C-alpha cells in the first residue's frame, strides 16, 4: 500500500494519543474518603475479565479511528507493486509504448486488446498519481508524443496498434536522451509491453549503453514494467515466405510458400486442420493445412494465374493469405505481391577480366528458367553510363574506388545494391568502403605465384571455419552444408577492414567478409580476399560454392529491381509509402501511418506488400532472469497487469473512512453505560 501524500504519515504517532490520554487520566485521580469500602473490596476481588477486555477494546477502537483518519488523509493507493511510486510521483511521466502486432491480442475477460487495456489502466493510474503531462515514446516516431493529460492516452489516434515490431532498447535510448536534455527531476518510466523477445531484443548491444546511461544520471529514474503477459489461449499466425510468378505446364502460375505457427495458451498441442484463405486478384480459394505440432509450412503451392493462351495483364499483382480469426487478428493476415521476375543484371568492373571470368559464368547462368541473367563488364571510368536502377550486383576487381566512382557505388549500396569486391593484382594504398588492401600473402611455400595451373603435389590451405547461417554460405533449404571445406586457397590479399568474417582459413586469414560500410547491418558489401584464378584458389574449379554464393548475393540485389517489393514494416522502403495509396489492408489506418502498418500499397512505380516481422509470430517471451540482467542495478519493478482492473492503482481512502466510522461506533457502544437495576436504588 502506498500513499499520494505520504508526509501525512508523520502524524502516525498520534495513534498513541488515546492511550496517553488514558494514562494521564489515570494519574489525575482524586482522593475521596469512603465509608462503604467493603463493597469496593468485594468488587475488586470479583472477576474483571470482560471489563478489562472492554477497556482494551475501547482503547484499540480509539487508536484505530485515529490511525484510519491519518491514513485517510494520506490518500492510500491499493497496490503493493507500485513500490514507493506514490511518494516519488512527478507531474511528468514517460511512457515507452509497445505498439507491435502482438499487442493487438485480446485480453481474457474483456473485449479490449492488450494495448487498449494497458492504455486504459495506465491512464487511470497516472491520473490517480496526479501526473499532469505524459511523454510517450514508441518505435514508429523518432520524436516523443507529448500529451497534456493522461486521459488523452486512451483517445490519441497516434497511439493505436501498428504492424511495427517495437524496439525497446531504442526507445530507452531516446528516453535517456530526453531525460538528459530536459533535465527532468526524479522520473518514472513506464514500459507497456507484452514482453516479446522480438520487441525487447535482449541481445542488443544498446542495452548496456542504456543501462550505464541511466545509472550515471544524477536524478533517480524508476522503471515500471507493465507486463501484459503471455497469450491466455491458443493463437495462430500466418506468414508469407515467398510469392513467385512462375511458368507452369498449364500457363502462368503463382507459387506461394507460407508458414503457420501457433502459440499454445496451456496444454499440449492437438492436431487440427486450418482452412487458409488465399485471395489473389479478388478471387478467393481455400486450402486446408494440417497443423500437427506448433508450426506447419506450405511450400510451392500453385495457383493458376492464366491459361497457356492468356498472358495478358498478369505481369504483376497482389494477394492475401488469411487464417481463421483468433485472439489476435493482427497476425491472421499476410500480404504478398508478385511480378514477372526482372532480369538479374550484374556489372563487373575489372582491369583484368580474365582473372574473374569464372564470376561472369556464375552470374550469367540463371538458377531458374523464368529468370533472365545478364552481365556487363565495364571499366571504372564507364560507371556514369550505367543504369544503376537495373543493376543487382556489382563485382569490383580493381583498385578500390575513389572520387565519383566511390560516390556512385555508395549510393548504389544505400539503395540496397550488392557489391562483391575482389583484390586487384597490385593493390595500392587506397581505402574505401571501410577496407584497405595491404598486400598479397602466399599461404603455401611450394606454390608458384606465376603459375596459372595447379601442380599435383601442391598443398593448398583449406577453409576451416565458415558461417553456415550467413546469407552467402548458409546451408541449403534441406539443411545440407555447402562444401566450403573442400576449397583450396593458395594466396590471399591481406586487408584492413571492420566486418563480419563469413569464412576463414584461420583467425588471421579471412576468406570472405561482410563489410559494415554504411553503418547498417543490412547492407550488401562483401569482400573476398582471393580471386577465382587457378593460381590463387580453387574457387573456380570447385565452382559450386562460388556459384551458390554469387546467385545468393545476386538474388538479394535483385530485390531492389522490379516493380514490386515484399518488405517488413519498418524497412527503408517504408518511407516511400507516404505518397502511396492502399490496395489492401486495414482501411481505418490514417494515410500518414501506412509506413507503420501491414497491407499492400501502391506508389507511382512500385507495388509494395508490407508484413510484420517474422519474429512477431514466435511468441517467445523475455524471461525474468533476462529482464533482471537487462536492468541490472537500475531501480525497476515488474507489474503483471490483468484485464479486469480499471487502473493499476486505486485510491482506497473510502475504506479507511468506513473503518474509522465503524471503530467510532463500536467504541461508542462499548462506552455506553449499562442500564442498572431499578430495584437496587429503590429505597426500602
Amino acid at each position, binding site marked *: 500500500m502506498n500513499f499520494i501524500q505520504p508526509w501525512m504519515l508523520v502524524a502516525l504517532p498520534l495513534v498513541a494519543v488515546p492511550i496517553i490520554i488514558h494514562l494521564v487520566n489515570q494519574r489525575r*485521580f482524586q482522593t*475521596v474518603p469512603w*465509608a*462503604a*469500602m467493603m463493597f*469496593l473490596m468485594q*468488587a475488586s476481588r470479583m472477576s474483571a475479565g470482560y471489563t478489562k477486555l472492554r*477497556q482494551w477494546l475501547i482503547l484499540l477502537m480509539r487508536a484505530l479511528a485515529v490511525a484510519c483518519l491519518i491514513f485517510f488523509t494520506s490518500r492510500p493507493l491499493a497496490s503493493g507493486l507500485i513500490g514507493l511510486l506514490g511518494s516519488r510521483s512527478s507531474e511528468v511521466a514517460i511512457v515507452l509504448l509497445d505498439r507491435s502486432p502482438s499487442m493487438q491480442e485480446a485480453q481474457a475477460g474483456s473485449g479490449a486488446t492488450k494495448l487498449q487495456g494497458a492504455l486504459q489502466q495506465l491512464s487511470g493510474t497516472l491520473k490517480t498519481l496526479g501526473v499532469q503531462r505524459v511523454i510517450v515514446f514508441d518505435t514508429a516516431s523518432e520524436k516523443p508524443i507529448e500529451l497534456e493529460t493522461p486521459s488523452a492516452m486512451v483517445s490519441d489516434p497516434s497511439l493505436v496498434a501498428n504492424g511495427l515490431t517495437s524496439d525497446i532498447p531504442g526507445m530507452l535510448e531516446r528516453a535517456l536522451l530526453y531525460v538528459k536534455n530536459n533535465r527532468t527531476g526524479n522520473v518514472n518510466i513506464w514500459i507497456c509491453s507484452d514482453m516479446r523477445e522480438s520487441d525487447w531484443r535482449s541481445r542488443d548491444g544498446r542495452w548496456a549503453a542504456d543501462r550505464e546511461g541511466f545509472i550515471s544520471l544524477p536524478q533517480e529514474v524508476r522503471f515500471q514494467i507493465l507486463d501484459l503477459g503471455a497469450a491466455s489461449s491458443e493463437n495462430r499466425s500466418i506468414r508469407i515466405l515467398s510469392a513467385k510468378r512462375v511458368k507452369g505446364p498449364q500457363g502462368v502460375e503463382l507459387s506461394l510458400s507460407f508458414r503457420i505457427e501457433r502459440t499454445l495458451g496451456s496444454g499440449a498441442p492437438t492436431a487440427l486442420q486450418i482452412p487458409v484463405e488465399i485471395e489473389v486478384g479478388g478471387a478467393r480459394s481455400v486450402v486446408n493445412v494440417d497443423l500437427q505440432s506448433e508450426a506447419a509450412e506450405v511450400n510451392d503451392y500453385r495457383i493458376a494465374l492464366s491459361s497457356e493462351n492468356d498472358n495478358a495483364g498478369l505481369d504483376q499483382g497482389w494477394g492475401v493469405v488469411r487464417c481463421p480469426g483468433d485472439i489476435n487478428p493482427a497476425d491472421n493476415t499476410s500480404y504478398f505481391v508478385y511480378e514477372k521476375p526482372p532480369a538479374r543484371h550484374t556489372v563487373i568492373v575489372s582491369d583484368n577480366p580474365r582473372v574473374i571470368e569464372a564470376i561472369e559464368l556464375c552470374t550469367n547462368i540463371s538458377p531458374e528458367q523464368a529468370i533472365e541473367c545478364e552481365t556487363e563488364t565495364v571499366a571504372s571510368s564507364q560507371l556514369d553510363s550505367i543504369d544503376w536502377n537495373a543493376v543487382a550486383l556489382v563485382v569490383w576487381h580493381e583498385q578500390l574506388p575513389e572520387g565519383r566512382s566511390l560516390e556512385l557505388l555508395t549510393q548504389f549500396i544505400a539503395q540496397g545494391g550488392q557489391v562483391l569486391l575482389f583484390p586487384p593484382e597490385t593493390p595500392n594504398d587506397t581505402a574505401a568502403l571501410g577496407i584497405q588492401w595491404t598486400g598479397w600473402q602466399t599461404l603455401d611455400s611450394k606454390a608458384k605465384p606465376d603459375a596459372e595451373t595447379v601442380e599435383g603435389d601442391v598443398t593448398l590451405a583449406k577453409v576451416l571455419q565458415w558461417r553456415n547461417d550467413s546469407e552467402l554460405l548458409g546451408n541449403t533449404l534441406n539443411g545440407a552444408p555447402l562444401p566450403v571445406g573442400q576449397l583450396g586457397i593458395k594466396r590471399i590479399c591481406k586487408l584492413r577492414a571492420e566486418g563480419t568474417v563469413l569464412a576463414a582459413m584461420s583467425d588471421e586469414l579471412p576468406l570472405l567478409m561482410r563489410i559494415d560500410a554504411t553503418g547498417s547491418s543490412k547492407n550488401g558489401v562483401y569482400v573476398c580476399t582471393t580471386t577465382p584464378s587457378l593460381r590463387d584458389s580453387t574457387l573456380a574449379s570447385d565452382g559450386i560454392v562460388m556459384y551458390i554464393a554469387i546467385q545468393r548475393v545476386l538474388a538479394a540485389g535483385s530485390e531492389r529491381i522490379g516493380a514490386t517489393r515484399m518488405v517488413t514494416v519498418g524497412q527503408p522502403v517504408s518511407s516511400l509509402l507516404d505518397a502511396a495509396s492502399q490496395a489492401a489492408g486495414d482501411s481505418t489506418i490514417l494515410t500518414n501511418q501506412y509506413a507503420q502498418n501491414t497491407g499492400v500499397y501502391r506508389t507511382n512505380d512500385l507495388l509494395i506488400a508490407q508484413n510484420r516481422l517474422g519474429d512477431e509470430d514466435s511468441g517467445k517471451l523475455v524471461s525474468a532472469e533476462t529482464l533482471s540482467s537487462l536492468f541490472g542495478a537500475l531501480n525497476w519493478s515488474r507489474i503483471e497487469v490483468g484485464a479486469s482492473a480499471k487502473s493499476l492503482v486505486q485510491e482506497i481512502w473510502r475504506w479507511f473512512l468506513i473503518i474509522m466510522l465503524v471503530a467510532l461506533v463500536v467504541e461508542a457502544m462499548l462506552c455506553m453505560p449499562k442500564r442498572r437495576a431499578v430495584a437496587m436504588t429503590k429505597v426500602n
Partner: protein
Amino acid sequence: MLPTARSFLDPKILSRLSAVPLMSRHAMQGNISGRHSSPHRGSSVEFAEYRKYVPGDDLRRLDWRAFGRTDRYYVKEFEADTNLRCCVVVDTSGSMAYASKGHVSKIEYARQIAASMSYLAAQQGDAVGLACVAEKMVQNIPPRRSAAHLKVILDTLENAKPSGDTQLPAILDEIAETIRQRALVIIISDFFVDPAILKGCFEHLRFRKHDVAAFHLLDPLEMEFTFQRPVRFTDMEGGQPLFVEPTEIADRYHRALNTYLTDLQRIVLETAVDYHRVITSEAYEHPMMRFLVGRTRGRGVR
C-alpha cells in the same frame, strides 16, 4: 421542655411526631404504669380475663354479676400498663462521618433520629438510654425516666464524634446481655459489617426478648456510585486505600451492594427486626413517621 436549642432537634418535626405514640411491639416489663402492655395483670381499663376466686384475693375485684349468673365466684382481671425501656444504640464509627456533597452526614442523621426518638420516649414517660459504639462502647447511658436524663442524652449525642473501626456486632451482644429487662433497642448505623454476623447479634437480642428496631443509614452516593474519573478511596475506618477506575468497577460494586442489601433484608425478616433502610437525602421525619405508624398497626392507640 428543651433546655437549650439543639441543631439536630426541630420542634416542628417533634410536635408532628408527638401525635403518634411510640409503641413497643411486645409486652414490656416496666417499673411504673405507662402506655405499654405488660406481661402482668394490672388495673388498666383493658379487660383481660375471668379467673376463679381464691382465698386471699381482694373482694373488691369479685365480679358480682358473674356470681349472680353462675353462682360461682370469679375475679375480673385487667391488663397492666407499664412504662418502656428504650435503649438507643448509635454507631459512631468513622464510616458514619461520610457525607456526599449536598447531604448531611450519617452521624448527623443518626443524631436527629436518636434525639427525636429519645424526646418522644421521654415525653410519654418511658425510660431512655443511649449507647454510642465504635471500636468499643464509647458511651453507655442506662435508661432512666427523668427529664434531666434526657438532657444528658442530648448532650452526649451532641458531643459524639465518629472515629475508629466499628465493632458493632460485639457491642450489640454485650448490650443484649447487659439490659436486664425487656426493652426497645433502636440501632442506628450504616451496618457495614457482614450480614451473617449481624444475624447472630439480632438473634441474641431477640432471644433476650428485646424489641429490636434498626435504622440503616446509607448515603445516596454510596447507593449510586456515580464517580467518573479515577479515584483513590481512603477507608474512613483506617483500612488500606484503594485505587479504582470507577467506570470499570461500578458494575461489580453495585453487584456487591445489591447482594449485601438482599442478604440483610432476608436476615431482618428472619430475626423479626423492625428494619428501616434510610437514604440520607430523605428528611428524617419520614422514616421516623413510618417507624412510629408501623408500630401502631394491629393495636389501638390509647
